[in-house]
């Protein structure tokens, strides 16, 4: 029987990693991820998690240590945030290129300067193209469930890729929520022991992360891209099996009152809960609006996304990061590209909001949806607005 516990979401991540029986945790504490690193240190010290905890001196070292432990076949976890993710940046690419199924929780945080420990998606967008599977979660339960799914997806012999779980700093990481934890024996059945196909071992030596001269480098990249694309099928399978076993279902694109709605709002992460409240209010006012939320950010769920917006006339996209000097928000430019070749597509209006932890209220979402519709009617949807900024 699953037990329901009131717990801070970061600590719940530690509990999920314990249930998943991680062998190695290498992490450096950074706000707002610190409680993940600290709670796992406690769990290992108390003997509740039989793992090696590597107290590294930086995030660059954290991910480097993870490469080694994953390569020998140890189930490996790390977590970071904002500047920490930036410091480990170059090693993040190595994990996916070397096909090491590390699981990492990222408590999304704004980037300096000015210094901010609060949440937005600037850190995530800088690792968009690192080749990791990336899942945006909305609440504590989803964080725990997807941390468990992440190990299963990452280690599937058809995938063997690292997975990032993106949870919003503070707005999600520091909430205390009631969360169902499955029993250990149920999790053991769901996540079989990890077996890396070609591990580092003296019995049968291999060379990993070799030099790739121009004659071979493009072949390695094509293999990596095909593999990441193909992982979607397995991600869907794992979510389906999770739903059957644990009764909670996850899909690449979440829909809320969106079927047939003429105006749609698109969000990622925990703000979707506030956005849902806004949709409820607007629906009760008789407005034809709905919400879609992208859960699977990489590999991008093109088919599911196009299906979700097929009846919409206006699509209002929320970004929590700016692509400076570019087309506005990175999510908005990505969904535009995903729809460009479609015969029937909504007008797309981008908003940037919630930077550096600035709150977006229910009224804020209502404003953006109404304003987005207005902008689309004027035909000036190529410009984006930073919502709530003082002029």
């Amino acid at each position, binding site marked *: 029987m699953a037990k329901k516990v009131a717990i801070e979401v970061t600590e719940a991540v530690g509990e999920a990693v314990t249930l998943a029986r991680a062998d190695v945790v290498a992490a450096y504490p950074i706000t707002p991820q610190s409680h993940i690193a600290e709670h796992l240190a406690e769990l290992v010290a108390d003997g509740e998690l039989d793992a090696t905890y590597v107290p590294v001196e930086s995030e660059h070292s954290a991910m480097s240590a993870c490469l080694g432990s994953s390569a020998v076949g140890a189930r490996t976890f790390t977590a970071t945030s904002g500047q920490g993710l930036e410091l480990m940046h170059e090693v993040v690419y190595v994990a996916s*290129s070397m096909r090491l199924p590390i699981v990492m929780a990222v408590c999304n945080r704004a980037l300096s300067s000015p210094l901010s420990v609060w949440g937005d998606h600037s850190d995530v967008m800088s690792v968009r193209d690192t080749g990791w599977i990336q899942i945006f979660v909305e609440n504590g339960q989803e964080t725990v469930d997807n941390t468990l799914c992440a190990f299963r997806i990452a280690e599937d012999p058809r995938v*063997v890729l690292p997975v990032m779980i993106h949870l919003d700093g503070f707005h999600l990481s520091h909430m205390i929520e009631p969360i169902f934890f499955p029993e250990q024996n149920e999790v053991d059945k769901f996540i079989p022991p990890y077996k890396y196909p*070609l591990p580092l071992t003296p019995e*049968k030596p291999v060379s990993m992360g*070799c030099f790739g*001269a121009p004659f*071979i480098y493009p072949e*390695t990249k094509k293999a990596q891209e095909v593999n990441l694309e193909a992982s979607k099928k397995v991600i869907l399978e794992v979510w389906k099996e999770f739903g059957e076993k644990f009764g909670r279902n996850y899909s690449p694109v979440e829909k809320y009152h969106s079927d047939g709605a003429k105006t749609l709002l698109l969000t990622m992460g925990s703000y979707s809960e506030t956005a849902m409240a806004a949709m409820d209010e607007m629906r009760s006012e008789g407005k034809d609006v709905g919400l879609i939320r992208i859960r699977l950010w990489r590999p991008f769920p093109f088919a599911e996304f196009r299906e979700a917006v097929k009846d919409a006339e206006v699509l209002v996209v929320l970004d929590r990061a700016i692509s400076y000097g570019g087309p506005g928000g990175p999510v908005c430019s990505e969904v535009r590209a995903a729809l460009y070749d479609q015969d029937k597509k909504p007008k797309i209006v981008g908003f940037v909001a919630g930077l550096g932890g600035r709150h977006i209220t229910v009224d804020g979402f209502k404003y953006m949806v109404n304003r987005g519709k207005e902008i689309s009617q004027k035909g000036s949807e190529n410009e984006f607005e930073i919502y709530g900024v003082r002029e």
Partner: protein
Amino acid sequence: MAKKKAAELTWKDLNIGAIVTEPGNASELRTGDWRSQKPVFDLSKCTKCGLCYVYCPEGCIEENAEGYFEPNMYYCKGCGICAAECPRDVVTMVEEKEE
């Protein structure tokens, strides 16, 4: 199936993460193809001192059956260090021409 040369491998032939399972296969990598100059050895002046062998950063100078030292052009990058170090001016650097 006959073993493919490294430069003929397709993306489907690669191990997971491009892991190399065969030890020492870096010797297949032809580093001699980026040379713009090649060393030409006049062995009539050579005293077999072996300084070129010691200084070659590629490690591609080998001792032949008569005890003379000669570069393996599959690997020689044409850096010219052997020519600079040889006390007897045995080595001359000559422009590579397309063959």
